[in-house]
């Protein structure tokens, strides 16, 4: 004890400074620092709440903008499946056959003489995600058969667009020319001729009149009718 007192008396300054530092460190580490950390954590939380609230508002605004954009786009386009496409095509003709493979839709339809093939092109041009492989048109007996080979992708959309593709100007030129009709003269009154066409139709015709959509009457000479078709070729047929 006497030695300790003697050591303390000899190193009083060192002891006081060391004691100060030790007590300060202990109080700082075990009392002040936890409270300080708690305060700083709350400050950080408050700052993050402000940031997250601002971010929430920004995200909300962005969501509104995106929702509006989707609504606008959806108003101008909607997804299309095979059945919906067939429904659209059925407005243009009678659906004959629909074949579906993994990578192709094949639709066959019959169209009347008045149908416009250009309308098919116009409909297909409004669709995205559907590549048109082949459009095959076959005319037969006043009707047209159309065969569409289409290659769908994962998403097929039908769009509403302002403009449309121009129509085909040769809609009334579909189908083969009919054969030269048989005519029988019944009577002639001046420039007018009473004739029976193909043993069924009775007609009163004059020079330049059309007998049907393909053939026009040019004249009657030597008991023969002279006819001209829409393609500019003539046919001379005797009155039977």
């Amino acid at each position, binding site marked *: 004890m*006497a030695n300790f*007192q003697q050591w*303390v*008396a000899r190193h*009083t300054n060192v*002891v*006081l400074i060391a*004691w*100060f530092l030790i*007590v*300060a460190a202990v109080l700082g580490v075990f*009392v*002040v620092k936890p*409270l*300080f950390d*708690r*305060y700083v954590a*709350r*400050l950080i939380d*408050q700052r*993050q*709440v402000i940031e*997250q609230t601002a*971010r*929430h508002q920004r995200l909300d605004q962005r*969501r509104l903008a*995106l*929702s509006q954009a*989707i609504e606008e*786009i959806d108003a101008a*386009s909607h997804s299309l499946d095979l059945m919906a496409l067939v429904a659209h095509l059925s407005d243009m003709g009678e659906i004959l056959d629909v074949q579906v493979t993994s990578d192709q839709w094949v639709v066959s339809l019959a169209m009347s003489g008045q149908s416009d*093939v250009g309308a098919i092109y116009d409909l*297909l*041009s*409004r*669709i*995205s995600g*559907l*590549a*048109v*492989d*082949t*459009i*095959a*048109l076959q*005319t037969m007996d006043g009707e047209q058969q159309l065969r569409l080979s289409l290659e769908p992708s994962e*998403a097929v959309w039908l*769009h509403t*667009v302002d403009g449309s*593709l*121009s129509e*085909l*100007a*040769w809609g009334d030129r*579909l189908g083969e020319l009919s054969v030269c009709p048989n005519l029988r003269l019944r009577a002639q009154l001046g420039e007018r001729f009473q004739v029976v066409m193909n043993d069924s139709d009775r007609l009163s015709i004059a020079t330049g009149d059309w007998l049907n959509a393909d053939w026009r009457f040019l004249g009657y000479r030597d008991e023969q009718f002279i006819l001209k*078709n829409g*393609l*500019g*070729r003539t*046919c001379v047929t005797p009155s039977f």
Partner: protein
Amino acid sequence: MLNLIHWRGVMIRKRFIWCARWCLFLTLSLVSVALSASIMLLSLSKDLPDQTEQLADLVRQNTTMSQQLNEMQLSVDQRLQAQTSQLEHQEHLSLRLSRLQRLSLIDAFRVISVTDTKKSTVVRLQIGDLAKLTSQPLENPFDVRLVQPGEHAVIAELVFSDG
């Protein structure tokens, strides 16, 4: 003769007691400082409400909303891409249709069949005279692939291509 050893012992003891008192005084001072700081920090902490739960809730909501927005953005991108694709598709089909529209430059014809593919359009038609095909001033000429003469019309097969 003075007993110096005795006085030295007294001085050492007094110095020790003095040092002990100063240690106690320093301890009390530091404790009071620490107490003041603690009271101040507690008071400051009380002024700030505990927003841990609110923050966690906000972070969760923002994460969910961010995922939703990514999906919505993807959806918008797909739709916009579809619109762009439709415009390209429309232009492509317009080109294919223009091949057929070149036919209207021919005076008189009857269409028997049309086979329109991506690369070319083959039209089988009836015309009065083959010379009508060659006399037309078409910008993009076509190939005549097949000719069948007939009594009242000629059947020709024309191949239109963009090249």
